[in-house]
């Protein structure tokens, strides 16, 4: 994997995350943090796939890294960690696989020839990839949230009335 590829993927991840940050109405001052989270996610995933890892494993690691970074830094960002988690990982959500899987299933439903099995198998492969990648991202984000979250007892801050 060349440095140029890594930079290209990182930049595209940053632009995609910032664009979706606008769609999610994240404040202007926090948009650079969104871009940073997207860039971190894509850089990690590209680096891991460059090492020969599967897309699922690379996505899990990238989500884990983004989740941990967000949990450790969110107090500086001035925004809820959930939003940053999600926006940072949005460029990794397998939207194209999901679309291809659904289209493949449509095609398999209408085919009647001998190519049915192949079409169905491809659609099934995409469906499984979507399920595993989404699961990997969700689990990767959930682990730092569950482990690193600072827990404040709710009753401790209650005012006397």
């Amino acid at each position, binding site marked *: 994997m060349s440095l140029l590829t890594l930079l290209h993927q990182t930049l595209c991840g940053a632009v995609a995350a910032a664009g979706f940050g606008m769609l999610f*109405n994240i404040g202007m001052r926090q948009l650079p943090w969104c871009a940073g989270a997207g860039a971190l996610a894509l850089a990690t995933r590209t680096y891991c796939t460059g090492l020969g890892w599967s897309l699922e494993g690379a996505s899990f690691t990238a989500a884990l890294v983004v989740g941990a970074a967000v949990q450790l830094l969110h107090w500086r960002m001035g925004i809820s960690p959930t939003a940053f988690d999600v926006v940072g990982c949005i460029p990794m959500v397998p939207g194209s696989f*999901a679309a291809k899987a659904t289209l493949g299933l449509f095609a398999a439903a209408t085919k009647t020839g001998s190519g049915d099995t192949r079409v169905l198998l491809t659609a099934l492969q995409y469906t499984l990839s979507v399920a595993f990648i989404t*699961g990997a991202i969700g689990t990767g*984000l959930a682990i730092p949230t569950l482990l690193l979250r600072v827990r404040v007892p709710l009753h401790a*801050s209650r005012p006397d009335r």
Partner: protein
Amino acid sequence: MADVPTVMRTCPPLGSTPVPPLNAITMATLDAARLLMESGGKAKSVDELVHLIAHGLGAESAELRIGYASLSLTISIGHSSITRMKKVGLIGVNQQLEQGLWHLAKRGSHERLEVEQVEEQLARLALATPRYGAWVTAVGVGLACAAFGRLLGVDLKGSVPVFLAATVGQIIRQLAVKFGLNVFICTGLVSSVASLLTSMGGRLAGSGTIGTAVIASVLLLVPGVPAVNALNDILEGYPTLGSARAITVMMTLVFIAAGLWIGPILLELWH
């Protein structure tokens, strides 16, 4: 509390009137919870917000049942308790509104706030939370989809149609939401228009990756936040809401695919 029905544990004696602020506290807290749900908050966050606001307003216990389309809350003070329900509207993502709600909840837990103040703040948040202009959002989304396209391997000639189609698609989506069109129909419509525009633009520009470009142009519709929320909700002990979100995500994907299927057919008919 997870997705199990709450039970009124203590009731006021027969013939007595309920404690006056109890109803107001419950409705204000439910309003905050509804706004957070509609802003794309996950179940655990909604539960935490409800506890912060309810305790800040003086409730001794707050038990919430979170559904996809409604919320039920039981608030108790002393021997009195009350259960109220509220419908949840169209679920979207609005981070600035979510941030405002958390700010209010934290303020309420540190200083004494009256119910009227909370109601007033909630109304202000719902109406006055700043949003990006429609065109600014559309251009941002267009750029994001073009970047997605590059990540998927779309060539430069195909990236421009992706940008334009996604920008137009976002504008159509905003108009459809404004006119109250069904969210799934809106998804199918945007998907078919964006795929049609990308196919046409890709052919005119001489792109060699039209198929991938078409998919990139509809990625603005992929419900990423609900998908991650669904998984988080299930992992964090809210399987009912998580499953409902997952089904909605699946239906959205079906409508995106239907739009992707219709777009090229329209193009062929036109030619």
